[in-house]
């Protein structure tokens, strides 16, 4: 069951690679949050109520409701165009994402470790690299943030893989996620929207050496 969910997670990455509209990205992010919650629920065997509440807060409330709603609000308030405006065509994006997933599967096959479920490793690393790829090839600042959130989801999956032995690390990961996202989204995306009307990375190039 967990495998099915994690494979669905990878499919969402492919879907993001060819999606065109900003709102689609947000919906996929929300869907990923729900997927993660179900995975946590099935994965962590001995879970105490406090931890469960924290994870519920992180995955459902934070990842699938609060962040997408806030981003939708930012999109609307700043009149950001709905297209994602990638530098590369979607077809190339899809090929590169596939390539990333294939490479991580090959990498994972080389590991001889019974303690780690390989599929967690594959999903985590693929979303890490897909997120980085997103950041590198999209034009809008808000898509950079979406790329960062994909990375965060990947890290969450990875922390689940070691979470049975060390629940402290899962909690630390949740802390990182909430802290960094609030810092990035809450403070700066709001401010950047006020100062730079159409938020585009090409405007962020005035810091120069001369």
């Amino acid at each position, binding site marked *: 069951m967990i495998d099915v969910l994690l494979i669905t997670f990878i499919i969402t990455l492919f879907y993001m690679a060819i999606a065109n509209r900003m709102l689609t990205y947000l919906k996929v992010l929300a869907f990923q949050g729900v997927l993660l919650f179900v995975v946590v629920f099935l994965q962590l065997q001995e879970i105490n109520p406090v931890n469960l509440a924290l994870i519920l807060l992180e995955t459902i409330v934070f990842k699938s409701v609060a962040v997408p709603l806030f981003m939708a609000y930012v999109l609307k308030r700043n009149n950001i165009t709905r297209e994602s405006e990638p530098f590369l065509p979607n077809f190339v994006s899809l090929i590169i994402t596939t390539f990333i997933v294939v490479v991580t599967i090959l990498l994972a096959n080389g*590991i001889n*470790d019974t*303690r*780690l479920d390989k599929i967690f490793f594959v999903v985590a690393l693929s979303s*890490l690299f897909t997120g980085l790829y997103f*950041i590198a090839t999209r034009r809008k*600042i808000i898509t*950079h943030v979406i790329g*960062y959130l994909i*990375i*965060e989801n990947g*890290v969450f999956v*990875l*922390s689940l*893989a*070691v979470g049975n*032995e*060390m629940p*402290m*690390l899962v909690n*630390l*990961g949740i*802390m*990182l996620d909430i*802290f*960094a996202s609030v*810092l*990035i989204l809450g*403070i*700066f995306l709001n*401010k*950047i929207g006020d*100062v*730079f009307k159409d938020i585009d990375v090409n405007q*962020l190039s*005035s*810091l*120069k*050496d*001369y």
Partner: protein
Amino acid sequence: MIGIYLIGAFSIALALFLNRNKTITFILLGLFLILQGALTIHAYLNLHTTELSYFTYDSLAALLLFTLSIISIPGIIHSHIYLEDQPAPQESRAIYYAAYVLLLSAISAGYLANHIAVIWIFTEITTLSASALIYHHRNKLALEGTWKYVFICAISITFVFIGILFLSLSLEHAGSDDLSFKNLIANSSKLNPFWLRLAFLFIFTGFTAKLGLVPMFTAGIDAKDKAPAPAGALLSSVLMNLGFVGVFRFYIVVANTPLHHWANLVIGIAAFLSVFIATVYMIKVKNIKRMMAYSGLEHMGLVMLGIAAGGIGYYAAILHIILHAFVKSSLFFQFTQLYRVFQNKSIYHVGNYFKYNTAGAMVLLLGFISATAMPPSGLFVSEFLIFRSMFEAHQIILLVAVLLLLTMIIWAFGKSIMKILFIPPVGFDDSHVPVISPWESSSQFILLALAVYLGLNPPAEFVQLIKESVMMLPN
């Protein structure tokens, strides 16, 4: 003590944030400096004891705390001068001081942490407080610098977290789940090499954002440029040392495993690329603050070359980061006065500084001599030892390449500094140049003199502390 310190420092930061009265601000800042000094003395008197189970007063932490406490005093004085000179709203002034105190205390706690996750937490807090400092001017450029800094630091901090996860996988093979450095070193022979390799790559890459090394150095350069110079002084000295602590403590673990040579190779490549990139930018750069920031990139590259070479290089690396912190912070403190005279940070619009501020020009000249490691600068000693360690490690070709690059850096740096000091700027109207009291340069002279003293004639306790910090490393 660390408990009292953290509670005290965080409440002082909170009080500074809420307070609008100038006298109370002075009292609070004074209290913080006393607290900081007390922590440093306490750390020195209680070496090798652990408090609150996550903080150990070891030799490296004591040395760096000493550096931080010294730099924090002129830091606060120059912040005061800066804020008096460039009137800012009460609110942003309060945020500035609160973030300054928070940054200093988070860095101090990060030095003392003996657990990789605790260092990681305090590194996150430095990102938060540093971004408040960078955003001090609330304009478009500051926003751009802050955004880049926050974003790159967020990605780096995620990388460190991924590294910690891999490290915990590696540690599971040793049948333990305690991620403190002591336990990691004790179990170093049993760590799984595959996961340890991945862990090292991610943790090293993550901490380079704070350390200011290739590949994540870019955000730091923008940050040092846009932050007010007294805050830039912290970013380019003590905060870089925090990044160094993160890398170095984990490096000690890796150095005790069979991966030692591989780790040296990774560090060596990043270090050489840093010196190379610093050279390229130093030749082109026209913005004085960025020039000083790139010089920091070069120095951190040299430090890491020393670490990769091993032997006497370990000793030299620790000495170098301490002396570099003094020299670079004094250059940044001096920059505020330079800016007050010329109201510009481009080399084209700055010049003949000796005419307008003799004491300040002397600081720049001596700072240049120190930063390029010419004798009698203390950095000369540490750089010389780094080169010797590379020579002893038979890295002759690398050494020659680095020396050539350093020659170019000295030429480029010297050309710009001489222009600032002696050649009159074109079209500069000097009728409104403010008179700057030479006393404002006194703290910089003290810092530079300290760098000379500690390099040429280090006290026995100082040498002993450095030797103890590198004791756990194999030769």
